[in-house]
């Protein structure tokens, strides 16, 4: 320890510019790997989510980009006709979210309401930490309670069995909701059009939707629900007819993509961009490693006299190896701690901004994905550290530590 302290204070930190350069290079490498790992992991999670819906005979609606939405031109009976057609001819999964409502809670978050039908609920298999699954065969009646699930954050204000009286904007009437279950913490939903981005349900209410509910809902809910509607166990021909019905009644052109088309889309855009991103990350990391090795070798050259004198008076290569590993261990640890704090602050920022869709729970504010990325960085640092130290030692041994160095 005394020897290590001596080397840190009297040798390494005397060439402070190299230490700072090394920390900055390591930080760039670590942060690049950390960000790339999280992005890949998040995209993979989104892909897994989409994969569960992307079955043979399943078609996901997608508004044609050329369509212009003119809400005034869409009549409520138009959307209802589409739903009537859907109810008579298809099995479909309905989901829409982002309906913010003012619901008092301990954390002063704006609460997001997510509406889904039974088919969607079955497809996603949400995990609960308490209570029972949603039931969808309730009778729609303003005097009756609608069973709902709430996120972990909201369950502090509205625990299991409690009731919520609220005016639901989509129904334009006051309803009573009963908390039937609590979602597992950090339950999420990926954006199907940007798989790496996701919304968290910690401050959400899951509302079960049945045909009667949709009939009573306003056009906002009905139309939003159609935007990503998933048609199950059907054929291309039948969804083509549906698309025509939607065009006739809504004036909007919807595309329905098959399993193969969705996979092709994924391969074309996501897999390709993931590959590009991985290659760029790899190139960046290799460049940073090369710079770090160069920086280490230059610093060795500058410190060679100091190393030589220490070797002359009793330092052994094994001790020098331990010193170098400890030194780089500290540099890497500083970087890991900095990344940890940046991530924790970023997660905490969602709480400060009351950004309910991004608020998460976790140890020190970090969620599983963050810890996994930190682990990847840690493993990378071990390999990176070994490369740097062994190259430095090789260089020190290659330039004969001899009296000649001092002359």
């Amino acid at each position: 320890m005394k020897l290590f302290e001596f080397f840190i204070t009297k040798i390494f930190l005397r060439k402070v510019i190299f230490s700072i350069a090394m920390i900055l290079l390591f930080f760039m490498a670590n942060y690049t790997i950390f960000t790339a790992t999280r992005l890949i992991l998040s995209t993979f999670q989104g892909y897994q989510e989409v994969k569960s819906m992307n079955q043979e005979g399943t078609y996901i609606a997608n508004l044609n980009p050329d369509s212009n939405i003119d809400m005034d031109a869409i009549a409520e009976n138009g959307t209802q006709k589409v739903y009537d057609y859907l109810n008579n001819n298809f099995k479909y999964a309905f989901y829409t979210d982002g309906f913010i409502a003012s619901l008092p809670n301990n954390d002063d978050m704006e609460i997001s309401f997510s509406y889904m039908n039974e088919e969607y609920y079955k497809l996603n298999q949400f995990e609960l930490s308490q209570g029972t699954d949603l039931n969808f065969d309730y009778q729609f009646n303003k005097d009756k309670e609608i069973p709902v699930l709430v996120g972990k954050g909201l369950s502090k204000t509205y625990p299991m069995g409690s009731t919520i009286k609220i005016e639901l904007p989509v129904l334009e009437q006051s309803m009573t909701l009963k908390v039937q279950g609590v979602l597992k913490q950090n339950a999420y939903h990926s954006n199907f059009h940007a798989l790496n981005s996701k919304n968290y349900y910690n401050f959400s209410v899951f509302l079960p939707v049945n045909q009667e509910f949709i009939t009573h809902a306003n056009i906002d809910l009905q139309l939003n629900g159609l935007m990503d509607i998933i048609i199950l166990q059907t054929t291309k021909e039948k969804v083509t007819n549906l698309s025509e019905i939607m065009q006739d009644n809504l004036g909007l052109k919807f595309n329905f993509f098959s399993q193969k088309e969705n996979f092709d889309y994924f391969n074309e855009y996501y897999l390709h961009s993931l590959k590009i991103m991985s290659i760029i990350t790899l190139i960046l990391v290799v460049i940073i490693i090369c710079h770090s090795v160069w920086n280490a070798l230059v610093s060795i050259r500058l410190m060679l006299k100091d190393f030589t004198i220490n070797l002359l008076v009793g330092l052994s290569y094994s001790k020098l190896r331990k010193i170098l590993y400890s030194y780089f261990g500290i540099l890497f640890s500083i970087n890991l701690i900095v990344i940890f704090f940046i991530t924790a602050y970023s997660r905490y920022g969602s709480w400060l901004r009351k950004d309910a869709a991004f608020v998460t729970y976790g140890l020190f504010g970090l969620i599983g994905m963050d810890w996994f990325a930190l682990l990847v960085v840690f493993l990378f640092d071990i390999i990176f550290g070994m490369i740097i130290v062994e190259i430095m030692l090789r260089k020190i041994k290659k330039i004969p530590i001899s009296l000649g160095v001092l002359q």
Partner: protein
Amino acid sequence: MTNIIDLSIREKVYKKKKTQLSILNNFKLEVKAGEKIAIVGESGVGKSSLLNIIGLLDTDYSGEYTLFGSLTDNLHASELAQWRNQKVGFVLQESALIDSLTIEENIKLPLFYAGTEKNFFEPEYFENVINAIEIKSILKKKPLECSGGEKSRAVFARGIIMKPQIILSDEPTASLDVENRERIINLLFKMNEEFKTTIITVTHDLEVANRHDKVVHLERSK
């Protein structure tokens, strides 16, 4: 009297970029305790390389080396480091000081590696050394604040602080004026007289070389 150094080198290959040079071919050296040996020869014949080998810094050669009755091949790297610390002292040119340390820290550096528990530090001996070589006034200074002569004496002090059995000196007077040269040589020989320390000096200065018990001429390998 038995030899404390029994060195037999078949070949030492010195690699530099793409070229390699064979030096010290079939070289033998036997040194008894308390002897003063000078090594002379033209540049590039391997004088410093020989000192590296004797001083246990270089083990990459073919041959056999017995030091204090032990075959050095059988010594672990940490034992070699310990011997460099406690049995061999290096007296080098003035530049062989760590600039970030004070002169006192530089001199006491071998004590740091010896470990305090072994109590190698003898305050009285330390006082005698710094008084003898007149560096008391510069102990708290950094090397860059000292003159060439002062730095040479500091390097000398570090070389003898552990009372080594062998002192290896590599051109210790090369950049010194006559007065300082005499002072360093006299100090070296005084160590030899007082403690029977073996002195091995690499030098270009034939006058200095001739004051040793034995002069070894190194010649270029054919």
